[in-house]
C-alpha cells in the first residue's frame, strides 16, 4: 500500500507548457517564442540565458502578465492577500524618478492597498536590508545605478512575492559593482529563498548565482538545454572560480550558446 505516490517532494512554482508567442507583422508574422516548456521548483534559483533577441524578455513579460501568449499555458501560484504572485526587477530604468526611495519601495504595496503604516514598516525593513536606510528620502537621480537597482530589488521583495522575476538587472553596471550586487543578491536570497527566474546574457553570472541554468536557442526561442550547477551554498565566488567544474561548465555552456549566437546572427 502506498500513500499518494504521485505527490511531488517539492512543489513546482512556475510551470510553462508549449508556450508560443507570435507578433503579428504587416509582412510575415514574427515568432518570438516557439513551444517553450520548463518548470521552476519552489525556492529554486533558476537562470535563463540565450543570445540577444531570442525572446528571453518576452518570456519574462508573459510571466509578469505584461504580455499575453499566443498559445500554451503558464501556471503560477494563486494570488493571496498581501502578496503578489510575481514581482519584477527590470533592466535599466527600474525606479520611478518622481518617487523617493521609500515611495519606490512602497509602490507595489500601495497598489496592493496595504494600509499606510504597514507599508511604511515593510518598506523600511527592505530598504534596510539592501543597505539604503540613509537614502530613504533621496530621489533616484541622487543615487548611483547600483543603488537604484537595489531599490528595485527592495521594491520587489517588499511585496513578498511567490516568484521573483529578474530581467538582466545588473546589465548596466560596471564589472566591480556587478560583482558586489551579485553578492548582495545572494545574501538576501539566502534569507528568503524565494523562487527566482533570472534572465541574463552572462554565463559567469548564471553559473555564479543559479541552481540551474536554462539555455534558450536563437529566435524563435525555445529551451535548448539545461544544466544543473553543482556548487554548494552559501557560495564563495573565488572558490567557485578555482573549481575545475566551473571551467567545464562554462566551456560547455559556451559551446551550446555559441552555436545559437552564430545562428542568430545569420537571420
Amino acid at each position, binding site marked *: 500500500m502506498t500513500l499518494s505516490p504521485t505527490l511531488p517532494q517539492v512543489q513546482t512554482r512556475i510551470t510553462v507548457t508549449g508556450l508560443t508567442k507570435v507578433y503579428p507583422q504587416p509582412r510575415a508574422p514574427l515568432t518570438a517564442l516557439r513551444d517553450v516548456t520548463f518548470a521552476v521548483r519552489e525556492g529554486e534559483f533558476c537562470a535563463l540565458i540565450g543570445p540577444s533577441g531570442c525572446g528571453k524578455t518576452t518570456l519574462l513579460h508573459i510571466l509578469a502578465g505584461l504580455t499575453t501568449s499566443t498559445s500554451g499555458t503558464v501556471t503560477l501560484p494563486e494570488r493571496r492577500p498581501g502578496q503578489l504572485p510575481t514581482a*519584477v526587477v*527590470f533592466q535599466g530604468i527600474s525606479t520611478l524618478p518622481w*518617487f523617493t526611495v521609500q515611495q519606490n519601495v512602497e509602490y*507595489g504595496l500601495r*497598489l496592493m492597498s496595504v494600509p499606510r503604516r504597514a507599508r511604511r514598516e515593510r518598506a523600511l525593513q527592505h530598504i534596510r536590508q539592501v543597505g539604503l536606510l540613509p537614502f530613504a528620502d533621496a530621489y533616484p*537621480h541622487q543615487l548611483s545605478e547600483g543603488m537604484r537597482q537595489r531599490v528595485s530589488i527592495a*521594491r520587489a521583495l517588499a511585496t513578498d512575492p511567490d516568484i521573483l522575476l529578474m530581467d538582466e538587472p545588473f546589465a548596466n553596471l560596471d564589472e566591480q559593482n556587478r560583482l558586489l550586487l551579485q553578492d548582495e543578491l545572494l545574501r538576501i536570497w539566502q534569507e528568503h529563498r524565494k523562487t527566482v527566474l533570472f534572465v541574463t546574457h552572462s554565463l559567469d553570472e548564471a553559473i555564479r548565482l543559479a541552481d540551474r541554468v536554462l539555455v534558450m536557442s536563437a529566435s524563435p526561442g525555445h529551451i535548448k538545454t539545461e544544466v544543473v550547477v553543482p556548487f554548494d551554498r552559501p557560495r564563495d565566488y573565488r572558490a567557485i572560480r578555482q573549481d575545475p567544474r566551473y571551467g567545464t561548465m562554462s566551456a560547455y555552456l559556451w559551446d551550446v550558446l555559441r552555436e545559437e549566437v552564430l545562428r542568430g546572427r545569420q537571420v
Partner: protein
Amino acid sequence: MRNSRWLAVLSPVGFLLIWELASRSGVLDPRFFPPPSVILQTLAAMTRSGELPYHVVVSGRRIVLGFLLGAVPAVAVGLAMGLSRPVRSLLMPLVSAIYPIPKIAIYPLIIFYLGLGEASKVSIVALSIFFLVLLNTMAGVIGLERAYFNIARAYGARPLGIFTTIAFPGALPAIFTGLKLGMGFALIVIVGAELLGSDAGIGFLIWRSYQIFAVDAMFAGLLVTAVLGWLATAGLDWLEHRALPWRP
C-alpha cells in the same frame, strides 16, 4: 560673473536715466513722454488712493480663476489623450482646428453668450490657456519611457493607478511648461479683453487713461502689467520647484 550682473542692471537704469533727462530737457515732449519720476509719482498716488490696487485685484482674480478653470480640465483631457490612442484620434482634429485661432477674436462671441460681466473675462483666460496646457500635457505623457508603464503594470496597477502614479507625475514638468507659456497668453488676453469691453481691471485703466489723455497713468498701467507678469512667472517657478523636487 559679478561684472555681468552689474551689466544687467546697467541697461534698464541707463535707459530710464536717458529718458528722464530727455524728457526734462525738452528733447522729448513731456506731454507724450512724461519723465519716469513723474510716472512713479502718479503710480504712488494711484496706489494711495486705492484705485490701482482695486484694478490689480480685479485683473488678478480673473487670471487666477481663469487659470484654474482652464488648466484643470486641460490636464485631465491631456492625460487621457496622451494615454489612449483612440481618445487622441478622436479629439486631435478638433484641438488642431481650434488651437490656432487667436482667442481674443472669440471674445465678442463670448460677450454675446455670457455678457460683459466676470464670466466672460474668466472664460477668455481659461480658453486661452486650455489648449497650451492640454497639448503640453499630452506631449509629456507620450514622451514618457515605456519602462515606467511596465513597472506600474508589473505591480498590478489599474488604469486609475497608472493615471495617478505614472502619467500625472511624469507629465508634471511638461504641464508646468504649458502653464508658464499660458501665463504670458493669459496676461495678453485679459488686458486685451479689458481694453475692449470692461469697467474694471488694468486694461480698463489703460484705456480710460487714454480717453482722458493721462499719459502718465497709461505708463503706470503698463508698468504694473509688467510687474504682474514677472510676479506670476516667479510664482509659477516657485511652485514648480516645490512640486518637482525629484528633478535633477
